[in-house]
Structure formats: C-alpha cells, structure tokens
C-alpha cells in the first residue's frame, strides 16, 4: 500500500489520468444500472451494497475539474493568474515543484498536498515583469532627485539636521507599533556656528548627548505618543539649547578653574608657583594679585615656555609615562639640572 502511495503521490500526471479513469468507470456503472431495470437478470444478494457505495463516490467526484495549470497557455500574463500575495496552490502554479527531506535515493514529495510549500512565504506575485509594470504605474507620482545634491557632502551641507525614525513591519490586529514614535535628531555641532562660550555652554547643556569623537549631537525623544509630536519636540529642544547657549547669565562670571573644560596654564596654580619661584630666585619677595599673576610675562624666565607646554600637555592629554618624561625634561632645563642619562 505504502509503495503505491509513494509512486502515486509525487506524480501529478498520474492523478489526472486517475481522475479520468474514475470518470470512465462511473459512466460504465450508470449504464449497467439502466440495463438492470430493463432486463430482469438474476439478482445477486448484495449485503454490503458494494455497488451503491461505489456509485456514491463516483457521483461526487464527477465535478472535479482538471488542474488549471494544465490548461495554462505558455504566453499568458502571469500577473493576472497570481495578482497578489497568496498561499501556494498547486493547481495554479505550472511548475514541477518538490519540497521536503527524504532519505537518500528517493524523490521529495511533490507540489500536491504538500503542506511545506504552503507554509513558506512565496513571492510569486512579484515577478520581474509585474514589478516593472507596477513601477511604471507609480512613476507619475515621483519627482526628480535634485541635481545639486549629488554627493554625501552636499547633502550634509544643505541638510545638516538629520532626523532618524524607524518604521516597523509587524503582524497584529493594529498595524501601529509604539516604537515607531521614537525620533532621533542628529546634527554636527560644527554646523551650528557657535562661538567659544556658546559652544562650551551648549555642550554642557546637552551633556552626554554630545560625542566629542564624532562631533555629533544626538537628541532622542520618545515621550509623546505620536511621531509628529516627538519630531516637533526634538526640534524645539535643539532650538532651545541653541538660544540658551548664546545667553550669558550673571552667575557665569563665577566660573572657576575647576569648571574649565580644558587646562589653561595661565590661569592655574602652576603659573603662580613658577612666578613665585622666579621672584624668589631673584630675591624679590612681593605678593602679586591674581590678575598680575595672570598677566605676568613668563618669557623673561628662561625655559619657561617648555615648562608651560609640558604642564599643559600633561593636564590636557592625560597622564602617561610620555607626558611625565616630557615634564621632567622641561623642569630640569628650568632648574639647570643635568639631563637624565639614557641607559
């Protein structure tokens, strides 16, 4: 039995023949019945009513149409046969498909009654001619790409503000995904044209939203339920930060050395101690005010410039063996001490 099925199932042609055979049989059976009524023959006791059962089946199968795929013309318009996404149907696809894993040496199950083929998403509605015709159809709604925006740099120059949103393709009774509301705004800080103070203040205002390595400010909003609201909000935030950055408040004058974003040697204790040392060396003992310290010209001290650079480098680029070594060299020069011997 199993052998029969295996031979029978994969072969689509066999089914067609089979159906035809069935039909022949059924007509034959009907004719015999008519004969029975006319000429009274010896009636055989048919307890199981075998013939009746066969008859019932046959009448039902009579209306089965042959496969549509058999009747398809080779030059038909496939887009009309399969216009949209649809589960695979073997009778509509005139391809000898097979799908399934079988032991070596056997043929995989054919396209009829094959649930695997029905499971996989198919793209039979997206054949190249169909795509082409659909593109042609929507072409009238498209506009041309601006000529001047021919490179990435040009795009960045004319449209420095970048708005990033995500659309989600998902299956559920509602096609709205709440994550789609999130809006990210990205802009290069250098395109904002801020001055020194404003830039510093802007960076402090946006906090960790500024990445110094890429010079990008990234503002993300997800507090409103709709995307348009969030877009408005990020734009508002950028505008507000920008204008606030230009404001100079009264309390900003109290900015101390600890609040500085970089190490300025002239304003720091290092210069003070150098000047003190210099004055002491000359034998003058006088106390200077802070402004006098700041405006003190260090060029009259020998090797002071090297020292200044070394200290600034140490503080600004971080402590490392290299910077410490550089500092040591500068200080030795300043004090007139012998160079360290290189081993």
């Amino acid at each position: 039995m199993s052998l029969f099925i295996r031979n029978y199932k994969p072969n689509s042609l066999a089914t067609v023949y089979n159906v035809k055979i069935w039909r022949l049989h059924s007509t034959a059976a009907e004719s015999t019945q008519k004969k029975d009524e006319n000429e009274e023959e010896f009636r055989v006791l048919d307890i199981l009513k075998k013939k009746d059962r066969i008859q019932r089946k046959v009448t039902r199968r009579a209306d089965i149409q042959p496969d549509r795929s058999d009747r398809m013309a080779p030059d038909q318009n496939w887009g009309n046969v399969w216009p949209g996404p649809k589960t695979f149907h073997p009778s509509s696809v005139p391809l000898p498909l097979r799908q399934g894993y079988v032991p070596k040496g056997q043929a995989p199950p054919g396209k009829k009654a094959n649930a695997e083929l029905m499971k996989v998403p198919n793209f039979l509605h997206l054949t190249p001619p169909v795509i082409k015709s659909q593109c042609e159809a929507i072409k009238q709604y498209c506009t041309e790409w601006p000529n001047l925006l021919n490179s990435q740099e040009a795009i960045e120059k004319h449209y420095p503000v970048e708005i990033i949103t995500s659309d989600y393709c998902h299956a559920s009774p509602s096609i709205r995904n709440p994550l789609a509301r999130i809006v990210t705004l990205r802009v290069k800080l250098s395109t904002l044209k801020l001055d020194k103070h404003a830039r510093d203040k802007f960076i402090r205002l946006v906090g960790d939203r500024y990445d110094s390595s890429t010079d990008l400010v990234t503002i993300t909003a997800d507090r409103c339920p709709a995307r348009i609201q969030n877009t408005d909000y990020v734009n508002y935030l950028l505008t507000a930060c920008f204008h606030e950055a230009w404001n100079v408040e009264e309390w900003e004058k109290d900015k101390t050395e600890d609040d500085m974003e970089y190490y300025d040697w002239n304003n720091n204790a290092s210069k003070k101690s150098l000047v003190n040392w210099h004055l002491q060396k000359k034998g003058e003992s006088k106390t200077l005010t802070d402004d006098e310290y700041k405006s003190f010209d260090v060029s009259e001290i020998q090797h002071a410039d090297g020292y200044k650079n070394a200290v600034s480098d140490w503080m600004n680029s971080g402590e490392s063996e290299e910077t410490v070594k550089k500092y040591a060299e500068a200080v030795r020069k300043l004090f007139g001490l012998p160079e360290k011997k290189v081993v």
Partner: protein
Amino acid sequence: MNTSIIKLVQHSLGVSGVLGQCSPALASQLHTSAPLCRVVSGKYRITKKRDKPLTYEMANPPHYIAHRKSWNSWNTSNLKDGLRRSETALEDEFIRRFMTGTWHGLVCSEIIVKRQFNHIRVAGIIRRAVSPTKMYFLLGYTEELLSNWLQCPVTLELQTVDSFKDVVFKYI
C-alpha cells in the same frame, strides 16, 4: 530528567487532576508542558503492524523545525521584541481549534496561520468529502466568524485532496 519526573508523577499519582491537588508551589515547579519533554514530544510510536500513517509534518520531530520542516505559525510576535506574544499564541490556537471543529473530520494537515500586517491567512489541506456548496458555505462561515472575533480580515486559503492517503508521507 524532566521526563523522568513527569513519568514518576504520572505513575505514582495518576495522570491528570493530581497536579491541581498538589500544593500550588509544587505544581508551579513541575513542568508538564511539551517543550520540556524533548525526548517524547512531537514524536510518534512505531506500531507493531507498521501501519500508522504519518504526514510529512508528523514524520519530522520538533527539533527539525527550520531544518527539514518549517513553522506552522508565521508572525512577528515570535521574533525578538515582538508585540502581543501571548495573545498571538492564544489566537492561533483558537483558530486551529475552530477550524478543526468547523471542518469536522476534513482537515488532513496542520492548520497554518500566517499573519501579515493585520491580515490573517489560514491555510490547510482539506479532504473533498463534502459537496462544494457546503465547502463554500463553511469557507464564508469561518472567515466571517473569525474576522468578527479577531477584529481583522481573515482569509482561508485551502487546498483539497481526495483522501487522507494523499497527505500520508510514511507508515510506521
């Protein structure tokens, strides 16, 4: 390990209803759900006469999903960060039961539920045991009721076969 616990419970306490009688803490620690019985779940016993028919789907145990066979439910909820996980699973199960009940004795394969956006496609292989008129009625009936309950368009995309024997892959 899991299966042994389950067997033990099944042997000593009787099969069902007993878990409910156990204390809630114990019941919550016993996993009787199918995925944990990976030795037996989704597998069929070989009969003596070797005459049990298996479809292709049944012939491949669950660990072959995505290797030899594919999923019966296609949706985005099962992906990472998918929405409506439990609802989707429940609805799919409901669709399956409704289908097998409505097309009583006619469904030859598993019901395949595919979701695209808000559209649910239900596919399956149906035996041609009832008249086409009835079939058309059942088709409309199912689509109408399901879309009413699930609040989204439902399409039935069925394939018909002469008899169950057409979908049989092998006998064990």
